[in-house]
């Protein structure tokens, strides 16, 4: 690649912001991986404007841009393999906003991961993604790779903490995807961009969600004779319904290496060690530790040691996170492989991986995130020995294959980059890869953004089902192939479908009713791995019943008895439990989709860590069936809580209720949901216009301690004492409200920036009586409302606009969830225009060119 005029840049940027010196550029040839490529220049933007200006220049001159954070990636993601300009974000390192009440932050992407965590910890908050490179790595790189880390077992990965992004698109436009509020009525481009390795857009700022820093933590180390034994013990801990903050494993070689750099007393004579951390209220740690220890020792664990001080604990993690570097002390070169398998396959994967290393006569160590099934086999070798190097890469390919065969991923957290792109066809079909490259083409038609990454040059052909036109007005496919064949024929015929779970329903102008009623049943279930795959048409109630028998639950709360798993996912219906359980976007591990052109793709894999290619499930969650038909969904499961307790307060006004809810916000840790509901009768408390409920879940000691903490917070706010109620749980109260209010009335869902429900309520124009009936979800800053104006279309539309205006002003939205028949045409359902609407429309046109899928059911059509 040649640039006609890199010197042009000198006219666009101050010389402090630019490097074109070939000698200096040598220092930008490589990240922390093996691959190299020298850029033609480096630009150091200091603002969003700088980035946009650079992008416009690049678009005009056809120059590739490669975004770079701290260059700590291991897969070559920041390497300018094809030349072009490296965009270094090291100087864009401001924490722009930090809202302790709303538990959120807006940061420039050059903020260092650990520096952010240290900053928010001062306010009692926590930013959990903690890659080992976090001392240096910046948020932008974390976003690009969807970084994980040891604490992701309990807390999830980077994408679970990103609610919005400010990005510069390939055409130079600056857009926001998502934002400060949750669940915007749009395709989840934010979710798609996280983990896209800088190939779709240049991310410049991120809206991050923070959580309360657990007040106490304990770390222990337990030795095992073999890695396999330790692997089995990990499964046993999880099967018992315990959720430690980390479950890290090191084998003997790993321990010796780590211990040589940071001596912390690892049991270097044992075969393996587990580093287990539990957190919560101080009262709960001893019993948590004791229970974990009992399970581990019953499975062969010995030599249990608990860190005695914060200094000792941080020393243990410092050593663990320095592992890769420490390894370099012993071997001239090493290769750290990043792969994921479903956790239950950990022990047999380790056996297989070790056998491969033995067969190739290679020395291998293991230090990895056992709780996530995320292995990091580490091979030491001498690069000057060509034969040995060849064996290393041969072994690594075989190891990757072992994971794919177990339905795992070729990369759990390091990314594909250059390193693993050749393996992509091993994991994904031609149809799946085509879906990804089509996205790339929509975002970056000229191929300027980080060219060459993720995808191999040669892609396998995309298989399509031959079109087969379904008969009759109702189309009830029995499997994915039939669905895809039908959709392909309908596309050709230009006949639209309305998708639903019911056998028949209101087609709202579409030619056919497509029901998922024949796509039911549990297709795959693993209690050990805590996931289930069900047909899209399976009812949530039936699914929960099935799971309860295994002491598990799906993080879905269905307001309607007939609600299906596929319907909930497609419509992105999130209950107040979202606060603790995550949203549907966070728990949807995979989904099989029948596309309008006859392709069947499986988006995602049943592992909690998978950064191979684009995060397609995010796009389908909340797409309302407008991008493809969800045939089945794979959901992450949660253990049934040891204790669930619901506490209640009567409130006379919404202002009072919201203020009390806000007063308790700093305490929320075990609190899984908070609901403030109008006109709700709850047995056991005095009848009042509003009822405020908190549901707490977790180990008993945590729930008890948090009850006291909530009480104390409310006392300071001069609220009455909390009353424990038998039922309903907060989420059930919300579900009742939504179910009742969605029958023949207009139901509105309002989302506002985290912590701003009180502001929103204050800003609504007009008197209280005309506002309708409300149910608030303060934990997620969402609200649900129905109006009392009857079926007068003009009055209803005016009401919607009155409720919508302040939400939009605050940076939120108000979307119509449900309209009674007859009203639908008069009311603007979305009332929200995403910045990236054109992109969403282009994506819709790409995947549904005939526009047959649920016409009008997304903001993009």
């Amino acid at each position, binding site marked *: 690649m040649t640039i006609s005029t890199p010197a042009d840049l000198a006219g666009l940027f101050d010389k402090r912001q630019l490097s074109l010196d070939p000698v200096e550029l040598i220092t930008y040839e490589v990240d*922390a991986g093996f691959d190299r490529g020298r850029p033609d220049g480096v630009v150091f933007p200091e603002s969003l404007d700088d980035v946009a200006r650079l992008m416009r220049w690049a678009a005009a001159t056809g120059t590739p841009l490669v975004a770079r954070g701290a260059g700590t990636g291991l897969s070559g993601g920041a390497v300018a393999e094809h030349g072009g300009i490296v965009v270094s974000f090291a100087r864009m390192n401001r924490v722009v906003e930090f809202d302790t009440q709303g538990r959120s932050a807006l940061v420039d992407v050059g903020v*260092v991961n650990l520096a952010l965590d240290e900053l928010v910890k001062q306010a009692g908050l926590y930013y959990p993604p903690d890659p080992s490179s976090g001392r*240096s790595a910046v948020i932008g790189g974390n976003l690009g790779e969807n970084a994980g880390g040891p604490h992701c077992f309990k807390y999830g990965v980077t994408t679970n903490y990103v609610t919005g992004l400010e990005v510069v698109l390939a055409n130079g436009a600056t857009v926001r995807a998502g934002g400060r509020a949750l669940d915007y009525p749009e395709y989840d481009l934010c979710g798609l961009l996280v983990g896209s390795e800088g190939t779709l857009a240049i991310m410049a700022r991120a809206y991050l969600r923070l959580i309360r820093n657990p007040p106490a933590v304990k770390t222990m180390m337990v030795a095992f004779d073999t890695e396999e034994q330790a692997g089995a013990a990990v499964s046993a801990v999880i099967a018992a319904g315990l959720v430690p903050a980390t479950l890290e494993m090191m084998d003997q070689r790993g321990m010796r290496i780590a211990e040589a750099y940071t001596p912390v007393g690892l049991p270097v004579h044992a075969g393996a060690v587990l580093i287990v951390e539990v957190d919560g209220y101080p009262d709960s740690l001893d019993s948590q530790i004791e229970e974990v220890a009992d399970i581990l020792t019953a499975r062969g664990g010995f030599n249990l040691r608990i860190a005695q001080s914060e200094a000792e604990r941080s020393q243990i993690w410092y050593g663990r996170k320095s592992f890769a570097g420490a390894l370099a002390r012993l071997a001239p070169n090493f290769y750290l492989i990043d792969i994921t398998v479903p956790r239950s396959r950990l022990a047999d994967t380790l056996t297989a991986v070790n056998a491969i290393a033995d067969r190739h006569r290679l020395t291998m160590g293991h230090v990895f995130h056992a709780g996530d099934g995320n292995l990091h086999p580490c091979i030491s070798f001498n690069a000057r020995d060509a034969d040995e190097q060849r064996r290393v890469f041969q072994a690594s390919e075989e190891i990757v294959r072992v994971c794919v065969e177990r339905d795992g991923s070729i990369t759990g957290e390091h990314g594909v980059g250059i390193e693993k792109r050749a393996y992509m066809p091993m994991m994904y079909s031609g149809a799946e890869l085509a879906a990804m490259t089509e996205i790339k083409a929509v975002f970056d038609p000229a191929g300027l953004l980080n060219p060459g990454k993720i995808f191999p040059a040669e892609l396998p052909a995309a298989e399509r089902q031959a079109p087969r036109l379904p008969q009759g007005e109702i189309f009830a496919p029995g499997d994915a192939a039939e669905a895809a064949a039908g959709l392909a024929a309908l596309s050709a015929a230009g006949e639209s479908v309305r998708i639903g779970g019911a056998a028949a329903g209101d087609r709202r102008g579409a030619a056919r009713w497509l029901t998922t009623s024949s796509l039911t049943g549990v297709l795959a279930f693993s209690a050990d791995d805590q996931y289930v795959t069900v047909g899209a048409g399976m009812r949530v109630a039936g699914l929960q019943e099935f799971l309860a028998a295994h002491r598990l639950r799906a993080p879905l709360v269905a307001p309607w008895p007939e609600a299906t798993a596929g319907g909930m996912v497609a419509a992105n219906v999130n209950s107040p439990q979202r606060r603790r359980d995550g949203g549907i976007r966070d728990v949807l591990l995979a989904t099989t989709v029948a596309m309008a052109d006859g392709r069947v793709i499986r988006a995602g894999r049943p592992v909690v860590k998978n950064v191979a290619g684009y995060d397609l499930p995010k796009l389908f969650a909340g797409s309302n069936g407008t991008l493809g038909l969800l045939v089945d969904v794979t959901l992450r499961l949660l253990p049934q809580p040891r204790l669930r307790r619901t506490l209640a307060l009567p409130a006379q006004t919404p202002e009072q209720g919201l203020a009390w809810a806000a007063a308790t916000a700093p305490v929320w840790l075990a609190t899984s949901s908070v609901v403030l509901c109008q006109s709700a009768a709850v047995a056991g408390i005095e009848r009042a216009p509003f009822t405020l409920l908190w549901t707490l879940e977790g180990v008993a000691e945590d729930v008890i301690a948090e009850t006291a903490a909530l009480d104390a917070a409310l006392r300071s706010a001069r609220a009455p004492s909390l009353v424990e109620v038998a039922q309903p749980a907060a989420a059930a109260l919300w579900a009742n409200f939504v179910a009742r209010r969605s029958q023949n009335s207009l139901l509105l869902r309002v989302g506002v920036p985290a912590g701003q429900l009180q502001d929103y309520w204050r800003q609504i124009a007009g008197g209280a009586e005309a506002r309708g009936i409300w149910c608030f979800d303060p934990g997620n800053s969402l609200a649900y409302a129905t109006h009392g104006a009857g079926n007068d279309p003009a009055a209803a539309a005016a009401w919607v606009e009155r409720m919508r205006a302040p939400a939009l002003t605050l940076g939120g939205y108000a979307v119509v969830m449900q309209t009674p028949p007859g009203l639908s045409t008069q009311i603007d359902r979305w009332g929200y225009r995403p910045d990236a609407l054109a992109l969403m429309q282009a994506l819709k046109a790409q995947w549904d060119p005939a526009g047959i899928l649920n016409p009008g059911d997304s903001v993009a059509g």
Partner: protein
Amino acid sequence: MTALTAPRAASQLPAALATPQVRDLLAQCIHCGLCLPACPTYTVFHTEMDSPRGRIALVQAAADGRIPLAGAFQEHLDLCLGCRACETACPSGVQYGAILETARATLHEAHPPSRRERFVRWLGLRQMMPHPRRLRWLGRAMHLYQGLGLQALVRRSGVLPQRLRAMEALLPPLPAGYPDYRRPAPAIGIKRGEVAFLYGCIQDAFLAAVNAASVRVLQRNGYEVHFPAGQTCCGAAQLHVGEDDLARDLARRNVNVCLHRDYVAIISNAGGCGATLKQVDHLLADDPLFADRAKTFVAKLKDINEFLADHLHIPPTGRLDLRATYVDSCHLRHGQKVVRQPRQLLQAIPGVDLVELRQPDQCCGSAGVYNILQPDTAQQVLDAKLADVAGTRAQVVVTSNTGCQLQMIAGIRQAGLQAEVCHVVELLDRSYAQAGPP
């Protein structure tokens, strides 16, 4: 813009960089980037070429003959403070200091300094620093310069050229007289042994009070303090600019004069000098006459904090009641790995409330003569340090190295902070004085 040269034939490669030893040192770096936040110049510029990882990549490229030694290569190596904070941060055990010194020696060889530069070096490194008496005369002259009001005049007028201005700005308030090192200072109370004291060059001329306090504290703890005659500058500045031969001469002199008696320890009270003195065994490894003696010398050489932490026989009991913060000397912390001891000593003083800096491991920008050679960058590094210091609201800023102390005195004056700057031993000395005679 520098053009890339075609790879040179092996015979033309910079010889010192192409040795197997240097190649091994370079190969140790896996470019993981964990050094970045520890590096003061990366923190200022946020550029790879001003990071440890980037400089290693440049040295590697030079060793491979991919880039010329002039231009950007030299520029970015010159910008390195040599604080070696990266070594502490590095999990792979890269010996950055050794790589840097080799690269600088190579540069010195490849690009002999200009005549003017040679004159300045001849004057400073050869004619002044190795000669304590000449330095004292300079000190006395500067005392007059300050006393006669010339300093205020010069500072207002700005007549000095940049480098001299940078030097002048570092002048601390100077004493009128100097201690007498001709006779040993006797132990106070029970005599526990004899130690050799290296009073240094700049330290003696410009921070004589620190030396005086060091001697009193050693005496108080039962040591007879000897001042081996003929001792000289440690050679750090000479090594820094690649004058290795001169540095070796100085090392021989110091080794020679300090091994006449069987001292319990040879004491240095400046972190930077100590770090260099602890490496004279490497410097003289190829000298058959001195190799063994240099090892003995190094075995006995102790930083004063290190020595006192183990030999504080008389606890300081005088109460001081002040809020203090400790500014690590990079060469003491990263070079000598003496981190705990100065803190321990400060905490042993009743009433001293020791507040840690947010980033105690970051350089203050003094870095030997860096603040004179690279005043702009040094200023930015110093600004970050001063902001950190101001955040502690300390009344006393405690250091353990000549360069740091001068840099902090100048910085604090310039920032208008109300804090006193002193050496660890000065606070100990004050506490002893407070407690009264034994």
